[in-house]
């Protein structure tokens, strides 16, 4: 019985590899590219120890620690220390996302499609499908760990020691393994792929926020967060190994727990209860917009809560940092601002940008739900009715714009409110104004997504790549000293830096016009093309 449970694991594993190798390979390459860009840029730009030391001073404050992580190695801020400090959290998140998507795709999504039913009706073990996914998870994260360590060693300078590089690679792989295992447990609790994905990303977000609050003072919380725990290894600075052991242990326990649940439960069921719904449709969902909203209601609520929490978290750590660095010429020179620049405001600009990018995700999701419906063959139900294509796509676009406005207002109010409540010297209205001025940039992204849906529907997911690219520019442009023309490839860079700069009608209107044009183009394409 016990050995039977795993029967055919190897074959299913081989089969998964065969059908997914390209996708897995591209993810691996993308993640390693991220590692490469970080280390390469640091070595190229921050070769001067004086400059690095100035950077260390600029970073040693609550606001920056909230963004990057607790300050480490400030007394000897080598390239290695700098890399660990500034890149670790983001890279851990990237590798975690990779694993979460991988596990959902191979477990709940396939179970929901009924594929697992057919496989399990064959002489395969009850756990084989799950264990083959675990093997895949181990393989992907093992390859990520090795690849990352090798990239660091090749492109790093003398401060990138073998021990530190190996440790860095390990925590990257471990982040994937930890969140992959967590997702595996969620896949047993929830009875749908979407539910599993939502729960897993909620946990990742929770880990991120725990780490911020922890680094802001309640240190214990940082260690409870998987991200904080792995960050605590401090590669190239202290090289602590024990968090690796803790992470490995927790992963093993999570995997065993997931297997136990899988072994016990019925196929297709989840352990969390499903609620009964309404027996008829309300007047609201009989309208095109109302219907579209009903489809995205759950993610809409989840995002509202998540962004409000993120806003409050950031708002409550942003402090008066001028005092710390006042009179330090080198710091001011590095940060590129003139002497009158208010440091708090500069951090605010960065954080508001990050929040605005985050709000773009649910806005895009609202629109490309249309494509999801099409792929599942459900769009035909709407198209065969009396609603025109313009009306159908228009509803989703309208909803997407509504989502962006709502999310921006909610999170900026949360951010401002928290900051004012903490007694920080900022104007309540500034972040909200900044949030509004970011809206047209979000609309450019949704407009682009509309164009993809209208003209090259198969390429719709590429919009996520562009969003990632924009995020990269926003987060690292300053740090990597990227040239102006390169930055302007992201629409977010055209938005004025409120409160340092004034609100600009010109930027607002130009971006809105571009967005409107793209959206109309998208609808035109959608009207002309064949649907799946």
């Amino acid at each position, binding site marked *: *019985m016990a050995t*039977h*449970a795993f*029967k*055919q694991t190897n*074959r299913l594993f081989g*089969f998964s590899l065969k*059908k997914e190798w390209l996708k897995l390979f591209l993810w691996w390459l993308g993640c390693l590219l991220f590692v490469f860009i970080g280390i390469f840029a640091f070595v190229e730009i921050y070769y001067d120890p004086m400059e690095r030391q100035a950077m260390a001073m600029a970073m040693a404050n609550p606001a920056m620690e909230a963004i990057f992580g607790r300050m480490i190695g400030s007394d000897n801020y080598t390239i290695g220390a700098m890399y660990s400090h500034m890149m670790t959290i983001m890279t851990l998140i990237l590798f975690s996302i990779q694993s979460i998507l991988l596990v959902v795709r191979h477990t709940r999504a396939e179970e929901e*499609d*009924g*594929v697992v*039913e*057919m*496989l*399990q*009706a*064959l*002489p*395969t*073990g*009850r756990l084989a499908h799950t264990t083959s996914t675990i093997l895949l998870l181990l393989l992907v994260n093992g390859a990520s760990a090795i690849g990352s360590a090798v990239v660091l060693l090749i492109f790093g300078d003398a401060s990138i020691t073998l021990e530190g590089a190996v440790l860095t690679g390990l925590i990257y792989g471990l982040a994937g393994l930890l969140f992959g295992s967590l997702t595996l447990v969620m896949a047993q609790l929830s009875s749908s792929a979407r539910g599993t994905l939502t729960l897993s990303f909620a946990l990742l977000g929770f880990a991120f926020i725990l780490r911020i609050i922890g680094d802001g003072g309640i240190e214990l919380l940082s260690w409870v967060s998987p991200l904080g725990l792995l960050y605590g290894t401090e590669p190239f600075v202290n090289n602590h190994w024990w968090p690796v052991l803790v992470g490995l242990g927790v992963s093993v326990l999570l995997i065993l727990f997931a297997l136990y649940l899988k072994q016990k439960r*019925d*196929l*297709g*069921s989840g352990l969390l*209860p*499903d609620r009964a719904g309404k027996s008829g449709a309300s007047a609201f969902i009989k309208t095109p917009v109302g219907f579209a909203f009903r489809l995205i209601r759950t993610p809409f609520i989840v995002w509202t809560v998540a962004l409000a929490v993120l806003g409050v978290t950031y708002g409550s750590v942003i402090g008066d940092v001028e005092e710390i660095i006042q009179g330090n010429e080198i710091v001011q020179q590095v940060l590129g601002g003139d002497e009158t620049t208010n440091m708090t405001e500069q951090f605010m600009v960065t954080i508001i940008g990050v929040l605005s990018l985050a709000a773009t995700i649910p806005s895009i999701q609202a629109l490309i739900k249309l494509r999801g419906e099409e792929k599942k063959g459900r769009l035909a139900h709407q198209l065969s009715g009396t609603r025109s294509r313009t009306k159908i796509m228009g509803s989703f676009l309208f909803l997407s714009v509504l989502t962006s406005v709502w999310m921006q207002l909610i999170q900026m109010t949360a951010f401002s409110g928290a900051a004012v409540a903490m007694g920080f010297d900022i104007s309540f209205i500034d972040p909200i104004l900044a949030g509004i001025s970011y809206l047209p940039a979000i609309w450019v992204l949704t407009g682009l997504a509309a164009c993809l849906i209208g003209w090259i529907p198969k390429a719709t997911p590429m919009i996520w790549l562009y969003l990632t690219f924009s995020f990269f520019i926003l987060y690292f442009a300053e740090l990597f000293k990227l040239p102006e023309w390169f930055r302007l490839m992201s629409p977010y860079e055209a938005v004025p830096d409120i409160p340092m700069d004034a609100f600009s009608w010109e930027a607002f209107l130009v971006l809105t016009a571009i967005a409107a044009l793209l959206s109309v183009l998208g609808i035109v394409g959608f009207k002309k093309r064949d649907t799946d």
Partner: protein
Amino acid sequence: METVIEMNQLGKTFGKTQALKEVTFKINKGEVVGFIGPNGAGKSTTIRILLGLIQADGGTATIFGQDVWKEAVSIHERVAYVPGDVNLWPQLTGGEVIDLFLSMRGKKVDQERKAELIKRFEFDPTKKCQAYSKGNRQKVALIAAFAADADVYIFDEPTSGLDPLQERVFQDYVKEVKARGASVLLSSHILSEVEQICDRVAIIRQGEIVEEGNLDDLRHLTRTLMTVKTKEAVPTLKDQAWAHRVKEKSGTYTFQLDSDYMNDFLHFITPYSVVKLESAPPKLEDLFMRHYETVGDS
């Protein structure tokens, strides 16, 4: 006769819904059994329990004498299953998926048999699964099932989406595997199909087997469709307990007769000077309809 599948008072509850109350029946070696009943009666739940996909919370179920949940893997070496809604990996071809399913059995794939099936079902194995219609996706599962040298075949509405010609091919293969001694459980709404190929039927309603037996036996329980033309009007026909759904059109009566009351009917009708008398054999459908119709009553 050797019993292959045996269910004893199977029960299953999902949350507050009792999907199965007590399902008891068996299937012998070389027997084709039709499994019919209204939507939501518990057909798929029973089948999923038999396949060890979900666990019964009452009663016992065995295939080849082994527990369906505990010994699922070894049982499945000799079982082939086709669900009614086949979903496949969009990026793989139909041929690849057939090979994958067969390879899971750990035996060498009989390429000749596979090629024959592909030809008979007029299936193109080189297309990606995302391009297949529903009927073609069913074919993938059917080909993989019949290409396996199984002792038990479990079909859950296997021909949904197939055209009538392909349905015929399916029936031929069922007869073929029966001829070599395999047992078949066929859940279906296509009653003519069940009538054609099944030795016995079991009717499930609200989680219970309400009727079970071979088709001839069951026909006794059912009604015969009668058409009678008489010289004189028969106004009292509709009042007879054994006559149902009496209709009259220009002196011709059509109605359903309880099959056991044929003699009573003949005695009754003779005085009215019969001109024409026809009877149609009872159909499974009539039997079935009776069980469908009563669902609303309880």
